[in-house]
Every structure is written in structure tokens, then in C-alpha cells.
């Protein structure tokens, strides 16, 4: 029996325009379509594969405003068993450290966790550090940025892929994993899955329920804050020419003019 927790996050769709709000520079969550971050679907898929290979239970955890429910439902309709949704006004504007602490507390609510699976990096914040921070807080081995993994008995083996190449990793359970885009192709929820998801238990918790101090989270308590933010002036189109058999030479001339070549 492998007890797996998957972390999911609702993010603004990368295909829509994303903005920071004018007053406090937090993410303007209303400005963009929200979706279950693509990488999370892969994290859910990997958890389901491990569960299906033996026995297990998959719990989805999401920290975010009420509309994170959609991301949770998607994960449940793929086949996860239950969910914990941490939603609290006090969390607004929390930094990565506070987010990791809240996630650690939420993971603590699930008994006997063998494996925590997350996406390697959310497409909005791109901090790419929350899984590692969570491993630090939970005191478990960190197998992050992995493109393949196997669990056998109490041992987990994984291939980590970064710009430096492949690193083969091995650790004992319990452990934390973050997966990259290459890990798998996530399944589509079936109609049956979508219907079943509506009946699956979703526990909604506040940070008080988790025993996290409100003074440790939120924008006002962040250890790093944005002091200025401005949309960059949009790039403007420069010169454009039609290729009349000399397009390549014209680029070369331009690059020479710019002292690039």
C-alpha cells in the first residue's frame, strides 16, 4: 500500500495575458483564465500509475483561493481518491517560504505518507524551489526534476534531468518527488471519472486548522516582497523587408550595423 500525496496548483493559463495587480503587485488572478497547471496533471498521472501498479491511495492537496476547486476536481476526475484544499484569505500574497510551510502542514494532515509528488515548477511563479523546500521541511529525501521513477518496496529510484544532464538517484521512502514534462502523458478524465469525482471527499481547511500562525504567512509577512513593478514597454516592431532574393544579405547588413557580427 503506497500512500501518495500530489500537490496541485491553479495557475493563469500561459496562453492568456497575465498581469500583476496595480495595488500590491500580487498576481491578478482575475485577469487570466485559470487552469490546472499542465505539469500537475503529470504529477497526478504518475501517482495514479504507482497506485495502479500495486495498492495505494492518492490524496490531492492544493493551496489557493476558492477557484482552486476546479484544479482539485480535475485531479479527482483523473482518478485521485480524495483532496485537501487549504483556502484562507490570510494566505494572499504569501511567498515561497510560507507556501512551503503551509504545504508541509497540510501533508502532515495525511497519515503515513510514503510519497509526495509535485510538478517541478509552476508556470506562473517559476520559483522552482517549493518542492525542495518542502523536502527540507518534511525531512525526507528530495528527488526532484525527474523524468522517470520506480518504487520498489521501500526504495525509490529516479532519473533527474537538468541542463547538466541525467543524474540517477536512489533514496528510501518516505520521499518527495518533482516531475518534469517528460515523465508521462496524462490521461483524460473519463465521463465516469468526472461523475465519480463529484462524490469524492474534499476537505477544506484554513491555516488555523493546520496550526499555522497567520503571522507567518501572507503578503505582509513575506520575507521577500516586491517594491516596484511595471509592465515592460512592449517591444515595437523594427524594420521589415520582403525577401527579394537578398533577405539573408540584408540581415547580415543589419547585424553588421548593430555591431553584432
Amino acid at each position, binding site marked *: 500500500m503506497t500512500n501518495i500525496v500530489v500537490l496541485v496548483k491553479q495557475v493563469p493559463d500561459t496562453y492568456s495575458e497575465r498581469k500583476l495587480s496595480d495595488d500590491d503587485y500580487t498576481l491578478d488572478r482575475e485577469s487570466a483564465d485559470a487552469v490546472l497547471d499542465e505539469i500537475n496533471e503529470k504529477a497526478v498521472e504518475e501517482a495514479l500509475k504507482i497506485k495502479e501498479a500495486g495498492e495505494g491511495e492518492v490524496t490531492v492537496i492544493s493551496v489557493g483561493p476558492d477557484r482552486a476547486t476546479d484544479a482539485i476536481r480535475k485531479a479527482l476526475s483523473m482518478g485521485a481518491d480524495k483532496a485537501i484544499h487549504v483556502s484562507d484569505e490570510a494566505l494572499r500574497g504569501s511567498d*515561497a517560504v510560507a507556501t512551503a510551510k503551509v504545504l508541509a502542514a497540510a501533508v502532515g494532515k495525511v497519515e503515513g505518507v510514503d510519497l509526495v509528488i509535485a510538478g517541478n515548477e509552476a508556470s506562473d511563479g517559476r520559483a522552482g524551489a517549493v*518542492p525542495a523546500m518542502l523536502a527540507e521541511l518534511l525531512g525526507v529525501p528530495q528527488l526532484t526534476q525527474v523524468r522517470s521513477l520506480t518504487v520498489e518496496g521501500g526504495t525509490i529510484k529516479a532519473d533527474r534531468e537538468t541542463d547538466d544532464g541525467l543524474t540517477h538517484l536512489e*533514496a528510501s521512502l518516505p520521499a518527495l518527488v518533482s516531475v518534469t514534462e517528460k515523465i508521462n502523458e496524462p490521461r483524460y478524465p473519463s465521463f465516469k471519472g468526472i461523475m465519480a469525482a463529484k462524490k469524492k471527499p474534499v476537505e477544506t481547511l484554513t491555516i488555523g486548522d493546520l496550526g499555522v500562525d497567520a503571522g507567518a504567512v501572507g503578503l505582509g509577512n513575506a520575507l521577500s516582497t516586491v517594491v516596484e513593478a511595471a509592465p515592460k514597454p512592449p517591444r515595437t516592431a523594427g524594420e521589415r523587408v520582403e525577401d527579394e532574393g537578398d533577405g539573408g544579405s540584408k540581415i547580415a547588413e543589419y547585424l553588421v550595423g548593430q555591431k553584432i557580427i
Partner: protein
Amino acid sequence: MAEVLVLVDHLNGELKKTTFEALTAARELGEPSAVVVGAPGTAGKFKEQLGSYGAAKVYVAESEDAANYLVTPKVDALAKLVEQASPAAVIVTASAEGKEVSGRLAIRVGGGLVYDAVGVNSDGTVEQSVFGGAYSVKSKAKGLPIISVRPGAVEAAQAEGAAAEESVELPAVDAAKAAKITGVEPVVGGDRPELTEATIVVSGGRGVGSAEKFEVVEKLADSLGAAVGASRAAVDSGYYPAQFQVGQTGKTVSPQLYVALGISGAIQHRAGMQTSKTIVAVNKDPEAPIFEIADFGVVGDLFNVAPQLTDEVTKRKS
């Protein structure tokens, strides 16, 4: 002057260029101390180079375990030095590993994490560029700033440093809390520069049409000494391997010159390259959105334009 810890980025016994960028950024805040974590015998050959980019001290944290466990030995070394040296800041490279090291360090020592900085200012504020360059953001950390610096964002500049060696004893690794490295397979990238570190990037998109025809992109890249990139459409169509993908779900690059061949320029792609200093685009479609952000655009067939440009570049070099 206050000490600033800089984690040395190295691979296969070689220093990475990003180390010099981090040392340069650190000099805005104080006197850089390079921290080398690795197998015994790693730091010795780095010392001189670290000194030439201003490292006043070189902390040497070497052990067999340091090379055999993922991320945690580096966190151990930095945490110990934070306690010992009370630095003004800690700077790492914003690589996959660097971000993880900085995140764990922030949890352990309680510092303020600022990630993926594109600039570090002497007043302690840090410049960031978010949402694929759509926003410029200035951040400040409370407490000890732990900053990761985006590769290629800071121009490395030499400065004199004493590079005085000091050894650091690493705590024993708790195997129940760490992942053991059982093997490594370095990237066989050939002679081309690494995508995120390259000064010039030449990318191909759906318009290239096939994996075989990507040769036209590679040839131009090689004439310019550039890295090769690909759009998501090209990767999804199987024209080029995923590790070369530039865009929101791939790499973010900000080279001096970005050449887009047969790339339409969807938001997805622009998010990964629009902070490039100069953008040149070639596309058959005059309506392609890439032209809206290109400094120089050619409406035409990339199979005519790119080879001609390759020849021109080669001619000028000889």
C-alpha cells in the same frame, strides 16, 4: 566590507561561466567569498580563476558525500557558513539545482528568498523579470537575502581578489533525508554553447517542416557560434529534442541576438525569448506575430534567407 557568499557552480571539474556572473553580482553588495562544495580535490584548480573575479576568500567544503548526494551537501555548507560568517547575502545561480539550494537554505536559516534575479543593486534591491519578460519587478528581501541570479543576465567582469583558502567541515549526510547519486550522464551537447548561456540563439519553428531540414537552422547557428533552439510547435512535431525548447514551458533565454526562423511567435514562445537584446525574424507569413517584436524582420522563405545569411556570416569571418 561585508562578506557575500557565492555558491560555485561547477560541472565535471570545470567552473561554469555562471560562477563569474554570480561573483560579479555579489560585488554590488560586498566582498565575495566563493564556496566550493564537491569531491576532494575540486577547489584547488578553481582558486586562481575565482580570485580573478574578485573572490576574497574561497571556502572549501569537500568530501566524498558532497559529490554523492543531491543538493543537501551544498545547503549544509552554506548554512554552516551563514552561521559562522554572518554574510550580507548569499548568491547562487538560478539553475534547477541553484534554485533548490537557495530555497532549502531560506527554510533552514530563515532568510528572504529572491529568485531568478536579472540584476542586483548596491542598495540591496534585486531586479526580476516575470511572466516571460512582460513585467519588470524590483524586490527586496527582509533579513538575509538569498538570491539566485539568472544565467546570462549579469555580465561577468573581472576584479582582483585574494582567494584565500579556508576549509569547511561538512556534517555527515543522513541517508534517510537525502537522495544518493548513483550515476551521472552529462549532456553530450557537442560544440555548441549551452542554450541559456549562449550569446546568440538561432531557433526554428513549425516552418522548418521536418527534423532533417533543421540542418538549415543548425548551419546558421554554427556560423554564428550560436546555440540552437526550437519552438514548442517544432518540438511537438518531433523536429527537434525537447531540451532545446524555448518558451513558457521550455527554456527562458535572453541572448544578445535571437534569430527566429519559421516561428510564428505565439505568446507561449515569446515568453521565453522576448527579453533578448536584438530579435531577427524570418517568416513566410507577413502577419506572423513574431514581426511585432522583431527588430529586423524578413518576410520570405527561410530556406532561401537562412543559407544566404550563413554564407554572408562565414564570408565575413574569413
